[in-house]
């Protein structure tokens, strides 16, 4: 793929996330999507930049703000939208919703809504790969809030101690819900924390999709090469509220506007236009294609079906004979 095609593809991927989530916000207001909805708008360059460097057999562990990761990883938009609706055609059969996207086909292990809770699981996935001599990387996404959790420190330590193939990707959007990093951390340089566990750590401009791609590509290659884990801090910003129930009392509108001026989609669009790689008709065609995909996803979700209530307790445990006979006796 040449540079031009590559740039256009990254733009297309980021736009898919942006337009999908804008539609989700609309559907939330319309009551089609319920529960918690955490939008990734503004942070698209991180998921898109990082995901392009990973292979199909690699594993992904993500957080509750993971629509972008799911789309960039290749989970079909229609199944993702059906999951947002809670329909059984959704990628987690509708049981998880926005915060718990799972997909066995792309090795996408959630969708973890306990801050920091995905890191130990990522360490274990990498341990399984290492012990079975599989050359895979586990990419573990988490936010700056997770750095305050004990599981962050325990997991970086264990991954480094056992030289496990984990790529720790810290999406630093400056706020743990409403608490700014410098109100939560005595040391705000997050790479120092990772380096103290003796793993390579870099900070990257998370608003620049090419920079994210280059940095994660290098880090993933080193991890895959058996050099142990690596850590990247991706400096980014969430343009929207934390969730749909957030009055944003904790940050200035001016700060939000300053970051919006660095919108990763606008930045890449301008670069592609000025280099002649993109023209207005081409950009319009990309927008049309994304809008069509979002429309089809909504139609798919609308046409989806509710899981029968009879299946409520299905898959709490495996339907093996032993368990069944026990529960029958208990009934």
């Amino acid at each position: 793929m040449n540079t031009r095609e590559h740039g256009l593809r990254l733009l297309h991927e980021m736009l898919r996330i942006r337009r999908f989530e804008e539609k989700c916000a609309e559907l939330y207001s319309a009551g089609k999507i319920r529960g918690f909805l955490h939008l990734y708008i503004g942070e698209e360059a991180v998921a898109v930049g990082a995901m392009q460097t990973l292979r199909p057999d690699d594993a992904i562990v993500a957080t509750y703000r993971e629509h972008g990761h799911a789309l960039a990883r290749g989970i079909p938009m229609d199944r993702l939208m059906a999951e947002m609706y809670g329909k059984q055609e959704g990628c987690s059969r509708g049981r998880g919703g926005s915060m718990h996207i799972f997909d066995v086909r792309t090795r996408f292990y959630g969708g973890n809504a306990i801050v920091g809770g995905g890191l130990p699981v990522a360490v274990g996935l990498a341990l399984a790969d290492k012990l079975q001599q599989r050359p895979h990387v586990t990419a573990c996404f988490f936010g700056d809030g997770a750095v305050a959790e004990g599981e962050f420190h325990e997991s970086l330590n264990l991954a480094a101690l056992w030289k496990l193939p984990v790529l720790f990707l810290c999406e630093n959007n400056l706020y743990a819900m409403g608490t700014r990093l410098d109100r939560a951390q005595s040391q705000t340089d997050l790479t120092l924390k990772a380096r103290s566990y003796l793993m390579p750590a870099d900070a990257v401009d998370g608003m620049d999709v090419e920079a994210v791609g280059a940095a994660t590509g290098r880090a993933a290659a080193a991890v895959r090469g058996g050099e142990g884990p690596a850590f990247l801090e991706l400096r980014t910003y969430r343009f929207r509220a934390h969730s749909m129930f957030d009055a944003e009392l904790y940050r200035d509108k001016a700060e939000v506007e300053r970051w919006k001026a660095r919108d990763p989609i606008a930045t890449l669009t301008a670069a592609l236009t000025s280099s002649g790689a993109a023209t207005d008709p081409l950009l319009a065609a990309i927008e049309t294609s994304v809008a069509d995909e979002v429309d089809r996803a909504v139609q798919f979700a609308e046409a989806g079906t509710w899981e029968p209530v009879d299946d409520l307790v299905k898959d709490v445990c495996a339907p093996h004979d032993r368990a069944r006979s026990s529960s029958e006796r208990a009934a």
Partner: protein
Amino acid sequence: MTTTYREAIRTALREALTKDPRVFLMGEDVGKYGGSYAVSKGLLDEFGPDRIRDTPLSESTFVGAGIGAALGGLRPIVEVMTVNFSLLALDQIVNNAATIRHMSGGQFNVPIVIRMATGAGRQLAAQHAHSLEGWYAHIPGLRIVAPATLEDARGMLWTALQDPDPVLIFEHQTLYNMEGTLPDAAGPVDIDCAAVRREGRDVSLITYGGTLQKTLQAAETLASAGVDAEVIDLRTLRPLDTATIVASVRKTHRALVVDEGWKSGSLSAEIMARIVEQAFYDLDAPLARVCTAEVPIPYPKHLEDAALPQPPAIVAAARELVAHRV
């Protein structure tokens, strides 16, 4: 073959590590130290550091890593030193291991086995001696087992490893030195059914784990007083084998639950509720229970003894039940 509870578990670990290359043991001091209760002594030399893995004191992360390794195709056995320490891993056990199958719509399952010591009786005070298995038995998605005999110490592990979902094994810390004999052919046992350890007509004594031997002693005392007690060992605390409990109560018409957990919000309360739901009209006396006093377990022996269920209290409670003549 003469053996101990500790050796029976070690034999089971050795069997699992030998038979299944996906199995490995991970936890604090399971390797060089030999296990805090010496259960895994010698296994590091036998199986090497890839499969007998000493971990840092990071309960949440090594339990979570076990969950990840299970998702990645291995069959981890994770040892947590005591149930009190497992609270540091509660997030991983309750929010991940127990939920992932259902929350992922059945796409993923977590075949992990987590072993831990539980219970009091060795003057270890209030942070090493509680009986919190009842809490875990509250959680859908987990299977909870409590081996109380040498056969179960020897046989439950392999069966637990065949379960595609998380299994927690609670080993009462006073049992590790228990001696007895096992047939040479001893092997895997079921982890579904309660067992009738002593048959009787007059009263059902329902217990598990560390209080089974005390309850059997109490039953002998009762026998010499002319009370024929049946003793049920629950073995699996979730899912509960309600059918065996109810069948016994339908026969004896009286039931006493003996549980080292506290009464409030407990497993003993759950068992009594099920009896009331399913065998209320078979009862000839109110239900009763002997549990641990509602205090953090104290250090001095006389107070620890006073806090825990003991045979005389079991005997007294059972005699009171049979005194209710219809």
